[in-house]
């Protein structure tokens, strides 16, 4: 089985951030493997460990993103593809999907796995867009995945309850981080990752004109804003009885929500 996992490099969202004149500035320029992509890598590794085959990871991003590819290789992926784009600031999910589609049109796989959304933008579009371009059956928000008789059985989280969907290979699955706990690379894994093959290609190699992709981008980010703050609240400490009666009084008479 050959599984292709699309992985994204994202800023560390836990680092403090501030906004100056509509632009975002982060205390740290640390970049990490997107948590949802990491769950997709983990799930692909588990499947190939069970059924044989290998995992390839594919990333669109600048030179610095190589470290993220290495991270996935250290987890156990066999090889990496780095579609190098130095300035990704003008690219949205639709642009990434177009580049990823161009690569996958020339490649072979039984399934493509992506994150159900990315940790920094929460867009959740790339998977569906990619599936559409490649005419693949797909399921989003997977929390479980099995392979049986040439089909992938996806357990997906729906609005209420979970749905078991069977997809004939080749297909595309977008993964939730509720699926698994991504493994931490071992020292051995890290050593081995250095010798694993990473193919670097440019969008031009794939027939994609990156300049027009940026300038014709369908969406534009015009700035950032603070999230409106909440009114400061009231905090109680002390005996449980007293706190509860204070709370009851406020819920009934101030907030009027009971």
């Amino acid at each position: 089985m050959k599984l292709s996992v699309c992985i994204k490099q994202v800023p560390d969202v836990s680092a403090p951030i501030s906004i100056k004149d509509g632009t975002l500035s982060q205390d740290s320029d640390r970049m990490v493997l997107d948590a949802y992509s990491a769950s997709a890598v983990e799930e692909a590794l588990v499947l190939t460990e069970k059924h044989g085959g290998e995992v390839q990871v594919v990333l669109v991003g600048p030179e610095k993103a190589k470290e993220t590819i290495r991270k996935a290789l250290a987890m156990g992926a066999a090889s990496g593809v780095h579609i190098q784009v130095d300035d990704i600031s003008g690219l949205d999910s639709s642009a990434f999907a177009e580049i990823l589609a161009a690569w996958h049109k020339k490649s072979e796989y039984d399934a493509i796995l992506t994150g159900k959304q990315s940790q920094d933008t929460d867009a959740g579009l790339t998977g569906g867009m990619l599936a559409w371009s490649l005419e693949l059956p797909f399921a989003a928000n997977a929390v479980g995945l099995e392979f049986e008789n040439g089909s992938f059985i996806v357990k997906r989280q729906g609005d209420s309850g979970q749905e078991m969907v069977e997809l004939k290979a080749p297909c595309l699955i977008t993964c939730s981080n509720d699926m698994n706990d991504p493994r931490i690379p071992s020292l051995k894994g890290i050593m081995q990752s250095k010798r694993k093959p990473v193919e670097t290609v440019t969008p031009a190699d794939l027939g994609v004109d990156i300049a027009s992709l940026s300038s014709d981008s369908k969406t534009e980010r015009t700035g950032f804003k603070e999230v409106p703050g909440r009114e400061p609240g009231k905090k109680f400490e002390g005996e449980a009885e007293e706190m509860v009666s204070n709370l009851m009084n406020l819920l009934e008479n101030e907030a009027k929500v009971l």
Partner: protein
Amino acid sequence: MSKILVHVATAEGKIKRSSLEVLSYCRKLADDNSLGLEVAVLDIDPARYADTLNNYGPDKIYTIKHPIFNNHLSSPVIDALSALVDKSAPRLVAFASTESTKEVMGALAARHSAAAIPDVASFTINGKTVETERPVMAAKVLSKTSSSSDLVFVSVRSGSYDVAEKPGSAAVEEVAFDFDEGGLKSILKEVISSAGDKVDLSEAEVVVAAGRGIKDEEGRKLIEDLADTLGAAVGASRAVTESGLFPATLQIGQTGKVVSPQLYFAIGISGAIQHVAGMANSKVIVAINKDPDAPIFQYATYGLVGDLFKILPLLTEQIKQVKAD
């Protein structure tokens, strides 16, 4: 005249509140910009919603009737909505951001070479441009994202707008839909639902949410007692869906659902940004936590610093009394 098309989601014979929020706001947006407003409903029996929809003043109601929509599969929804987008030829398609919408939006936008802006907290039309604000970086900041494409899809977080009626009497147009089930490359095998799925979390007026602090079955019982007493939906942090104490459907936050109830109880929840991302829009937030420095207190309208195992039985008892009076 150019139009806005709103797709309304239905569940168990009702239109979802989050869809009515979007529809209500779009009526206003359409009026302000001299646009038409059309609504699309896909269901096994869509005609039953016509009266409800007409309370919100659409200019036209498109329906597609097909039993396949009971099957939770994305490809028939994509085909049907696509047909309606072709028919209505809107400039803006708006949805409530449900899990089902999240599954189809990317593919739909790609199919129509349209722009897609998901999960917005607000949106408006300014001349040729659709302008939105959406939470990013685990909802720590809002990104202003806009599009001047000829066709734009937006999905809207629940609780972003109020439901407001504006009665009208639009005609219903049933659109034929030939769906070749034999050609399906995906098959729904089973729907697994659990007890907690009964109350729709994203629609609930009151949510009682549990975190790691509830520890075990005993804590879970206290949560369920409080929720039953209040007639509330139960929600959960990732810590307790991961541990299996609550089903994953109940998770609230960045990975889980966005809720916007009138009253939210965060019990034994620390208030990690990824959790807050899903509940910060709640009107009144009550936090119960034994750690006075827990970040959840920064969001709480009313915070109780103490042991939930002592506080919850008392609280449930007092609420029972109020409800009995």
